[in-house]
């Protein structure tokens, strides 16, 4: 397993993925936080600047964008690399349990996301100064909890996209994955609307729609869960469990997909 992880880390390094993450993530965080540092809030005519907590919210939301991008690229292009086309035959011959592969990819993706978090913290310090970290409003515990929550969610997205990439090809997955996440967001909004509006709960279609949504990865609730986590420091354990169940499901499906070498589609690079 360790050898597989080392091999995969070498691939990440040689493919220049690591440098792309550092550059892309630093640019997004520094530019975004610079913008936030110049924002002012006007409440009843009183103009004030944002506090460390709001600045940290902003940093974490920027981090969502870069983290999701990393999970997407890793899931669609990097995780399936060894399991597609002619290469898959040689990978199949490596004498290890096929379960080691998805577990290795989970670990390596977590490593990339950790680097992304590190870049976020460095960018935050660069823009707002080191003293903001010692501010009583800044909580390292909440930051750690947010990282854990994002990590689980992004790992599910990564593995889901990797499974789709192995099944339908990379280009198709890029669009299918985008549509799927978008549909889940819409479903999340609709489900919220139903649950908050008692009139609408009488609509007969509500039952199956909400039931279905509740079983899918809670993408539509992700932002709300994160908001609750940052402001109150509380996990939505129901959703954490659901994300974890989907992660285990995708590990099993990935293992099942690589049971035989996968022939490359003619349209794929």
């Amino acid at each position, binding site marked *: 397993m360790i*050898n597989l992880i080392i*091999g995969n880390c*070498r*691939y990440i390094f*040689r*493919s220049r993925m690591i440098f792309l993450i550092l550059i892309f993530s630093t640019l997004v965080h520094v530019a975004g936080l610079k913008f936030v540092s110049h924002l002012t809030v006007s409440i009843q005519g009183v103009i004030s600047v944002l506090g460390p907590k709001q600045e940290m919210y902003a940093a974490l939301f920027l981090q969502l964008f870069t983290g999701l991008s990393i999970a997407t690229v890793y899931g669609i292009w990097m995780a399936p*690399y*060894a399991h597609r*086309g*002619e*290469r898959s*035959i*040689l990978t*199949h*011959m*490596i*004498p*290890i*349990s096929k379960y080691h592969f998805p577990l290795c990819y989970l670990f390596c993706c977590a490593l990339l996301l950790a680097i992304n978090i590190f870049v976020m913290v460095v960018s935050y310090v660069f823009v707002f100064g080191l003293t903001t970290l010692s501010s009583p409003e800044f909580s390292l515990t909440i930051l750690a909890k947010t990282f854990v929550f994002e990590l689980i969610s992004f790992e599910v997205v990564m593995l889901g996209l990797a499974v789709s990439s192995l099944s339908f090809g990379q280009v198709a997955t890029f669009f299918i994955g985008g549509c799927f996440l978008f549909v889940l967001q819409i479903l999340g909004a609709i489900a919220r609307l139903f649950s908050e509006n008692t009139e609408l709960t009488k609509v007969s279609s509500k039952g199956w729609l909400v039931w279905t949504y509740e079983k899918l990865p809670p993408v539509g609730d992700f932002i709300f869960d994160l908001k609750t986590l940052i402001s109150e420091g509380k996990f939505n354990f129901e959703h954490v469990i659901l994300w974890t169940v989907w992660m285990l499901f995708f590990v099993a499906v990935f293992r099942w997909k690589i049971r*035989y*070498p996968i022939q490359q589609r003619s349209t794929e690079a």
Partner: protein
Amino acid sequence: MNPSATLVQSILHLDKVTVKYGFTKAIETVSFDLIPGMALGLIGANGAGKTTSIRAILGMLGVSEGKITIFEESKMTPKLLARIGFAPEEATPPEYLTAKEYLTFLSKFKIKAQESSEHSIESLLSWFELDPNKPIRKYSKGMRRRLVLSQAFLGKPDLIILDEPLNGLDPIMIQKLRERVVESRRSGASILYSSHILSELENSCTDVVMMHKGKVVMKGTIPALVETYGSVEKAFAANVGGN
């Protein structure tokens, strides 16, 4: 087929194996044995079912009917894979590595002792005349082919399976591969060798299995075939067709 196959414990045993692609039977009731020290040549025209048979043996395809036993196990496991060296007909090693890095990576799964691993890698790279530190993406087609062949011999496997190994090799390398096959067989490994080039099989193998349209049409030892037909080529023409 060598009559001793039934007496000595088979390393590989195919018992009426059928593999289907959808509703089409790619191979049908294929049976043969491979015993220690044997070099078995799989002969057949394109589409005869040689590669399908190999893939079924290595657990890369589901078997519809029949049974495959390797090292007395009927299910392919990592432990079994560690005892098998396989050079597929077409394969691309990871381009971001060098040849040495690739073999070192594989050796970590196949060879236990670090010292013997390094020795084995260097000797293979030198035998197959590969530049150890050149990235694989800069390798020519022939060099990639040699690298794929070299990894099949890594860790001195008990069973070596070569699928059309001569494709893309120059005459010198063909000669060297022949020597390598003979050497491996002498050191106790069994070889399953699939090829179109009948004269090469006659030189490298002890036994042959002829396949045609997914079925085994003939099997026997090379000396017996030569004695009966004059050459493997003539035996092939008599049983499969052609001049």
